């Protein structure tokens, strides 16, 4: 049952094992069922757009994958094998990198310190190699956002877009295999957004699987191979972007209706 979606999606890697498969994931906070029995998978070199209105449960679902939350029930498979992910360190060990919606930057330290947070470069004496980290950071940032020059300032003093660039740089710098981008372009200008689009193509070509999250369909429709739509914590359905129109996806997001070209999820409404 779980592979039918992949087979009908027209994915070139349909026969391969998914990089990540999340199955029947549920979590609730107090009485709120933030995510209920959500399932989805991600293949190598694939961009999956995770869509849904505000509060649909998108961020919560991917935070379970990135280890920020521990699920109440459900299973996560990485490369077809069951994975234990109960904290962010585990997720990183599986090559899962995340750009959080809140960016998750330590505001009081500079770009290099944020980029290498938790994975600092050390000198042979075991001390921080700040010079090397700054040099590497300059290289990465140059590729992402050539206008970025404020390497010495605490990131608190940067603009929203500059901060977002730092968060993106951090996620792509450590050879991620699975990249989670939660509204990565929310604060970016058109030029920088374009750059992130190009970056996503490039990463895709390298065989990296990407979850691209947004509440706005226009951000993701052109970049995504597939979309998964959530509503009120449950998956409405999923579809290859070839098989559905933007309007149909919009219908899934707003009304929870599953069109003909999509595979129904447990959250789909009957019409």
């Amino acid at each position, binding site marked *: 049952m779980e592979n039918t979606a992949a087979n009908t999606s027209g994915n070139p890697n349909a026969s391969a094992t998914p990089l990540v498969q999340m199955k029947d994931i549920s979590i609730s906070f107090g009485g709120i069922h933030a995510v209920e029995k959500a399932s989805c998978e991600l293949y190598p070199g694939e961009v999956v757009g995770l869509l849904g209105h505000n509060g649909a449960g998108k961020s919560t679902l991917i935070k379970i994958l990135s280890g*920020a939350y521990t699920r109440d029930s459900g299973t996560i498979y990485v490369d077809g094998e069951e994975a234990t992910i109960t904290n962010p360190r585990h997720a990183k060990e599986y090559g899962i990198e995340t750009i959080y919606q809140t960016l*998750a930057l330590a505001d009081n330290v500079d770009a290099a310190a944020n980029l290498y947070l*938790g994975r600092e470069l050390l000198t042979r004496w075991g001390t921080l190699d700040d010079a090397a980290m700054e040099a590497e950071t300059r290289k990465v940032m140059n590729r992402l956002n050539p206008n970025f020059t404020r390497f010495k300032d605490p990131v608190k003093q940067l603009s929203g877009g500059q901060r977002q660039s730092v968060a993106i740089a951090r996620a792509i710098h450590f050879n991620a295999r699975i990249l989670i981008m939660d509204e990565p372009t929310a604060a970016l200008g058109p030029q920088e957004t374009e750059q992130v689009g190009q970056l996503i193509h490039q990463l895709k070509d390298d065989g990296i699987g990407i979850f691209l999250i947004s509440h706005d369909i226009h951000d993701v429709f052109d970049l995504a191979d597939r979309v998964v739509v959530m509503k009120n914590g449950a998956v409405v359905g999923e579809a290859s972007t070839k098989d559905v129109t933007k309007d149909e996806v919009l219908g899934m997001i707003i009304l929870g209706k599953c069109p003909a070209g999509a595979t129904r999820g447990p959250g789909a409404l009957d019409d």
Partner: protein
Amino acid sequence: MSEEKTEYKESAMVRFLRATEVDTRLLGMIGALVLIWLGFHFYGHFVNGYGAFLTPRNLWNLSVQTSSIAVMATGMVLVIVTRHIDLSVGSLLGFTAMIMGVTQVWVLPQFLGLGHPMIWVITVIVGVLFGTMIGAFQGFLIAYLSIPAFIVTLGGLLIWRGASYLVARGETIAPVDQTFSLIGGGPYGTIGATGSWILGGVVCAGILFMLYNGRKQRLRFGFPTRPMWAECLIGGVGMFVVLGAVMVMNAYPWPKGIVKRYAASNNIEIPEGGLFISHGFAIPILVAIAVGIAMTFLATRTRFGRYVFAIGGNPEAAELAGINTKKMTMLIFALMGGLTGIAAVIASARLKSATLALGQFDELYVIAAAVIGGTSFAGGIGTIYGAILGALVMQSLQSGMVLIGFDAAIQQMVVGGVLVLAVFLDNLYRRNSA
């Protein structure tokens, strides 16, 4: 103050600050310290007819009195940077001192004999370990059981003070081991004139090496460096301060009685004009300096320090970056406890005894030192050198007021007022420079 806003017409001062990369708040603190020192000196000079503050004797005493607070303040910086607080340090100091008192006065002499050379070593190890363990325990409650640090350490404030009463039923434990007491200073607990010059030389060499190494590192990656004159100026001022401190410490002679006893026991003829034997740096200052250097290294050059500041800046981000924030919290409190143990060694050695009141109100001085030194309760901001300077400011105020004859009630009020004023000024400074 704000370098960004005045960029279009840079004054000489701004250019100077940029070239030297000196932080303005450090300058501000040094300025405040100089004002306090001159203020007390000239108040004494004009009102009491004798300016006693800027004398070698007073400055030497000041340095000794500052040591124990300074040692704890370096740890308090890390605690406050991670958005916690430790109210228990004063009581923990008293309790640890009591445990060390019992160890070296009641227990160890029974096994090793009175005055055994290992007594002080074992005592110090016991004290530091003990402080570390209690700190770790409090940290455990804070990190893993999620009890707020304020509550845990407020409990600690009462519990450890009570416990130190129980240890000796309120008795004062004395006298401490002879060698142990040297750690508290006193005429014999100093390194003398020659030793002080050697130390000064080593520190100067260290300053030069750090400047050289920093420059080399920056050149290696092609980063902008300070202009040569700025490097020279920083090195020059640094060495001037170090050698100046050596001269002041060496200018304070042993008291006559001690010189007489020393001369008698060493068969030295006392010449006509009397024998001038310098104190030089006291051992507690050396301990404080060593702790300051080690803590600065820890805070700025190691992963541990980087994590401390990251947690303070954004605890959630630190956790998401894979930092084990619970373990870090426990370690930080353990470190605070260990430093309190070291401070307890200094304080009880200086007093040559362990008393029930030892360390009372120290938590307030330690927190004040950290805060005056620029540590922010909002988290993520603070420096070790700032806290040490803050400790010096607090102690200068305290002993300055004693010197000019303010009574205890006024002293308390001034110290309290200064603390509030310092935080207010700090807020102003941050608003203008951020």
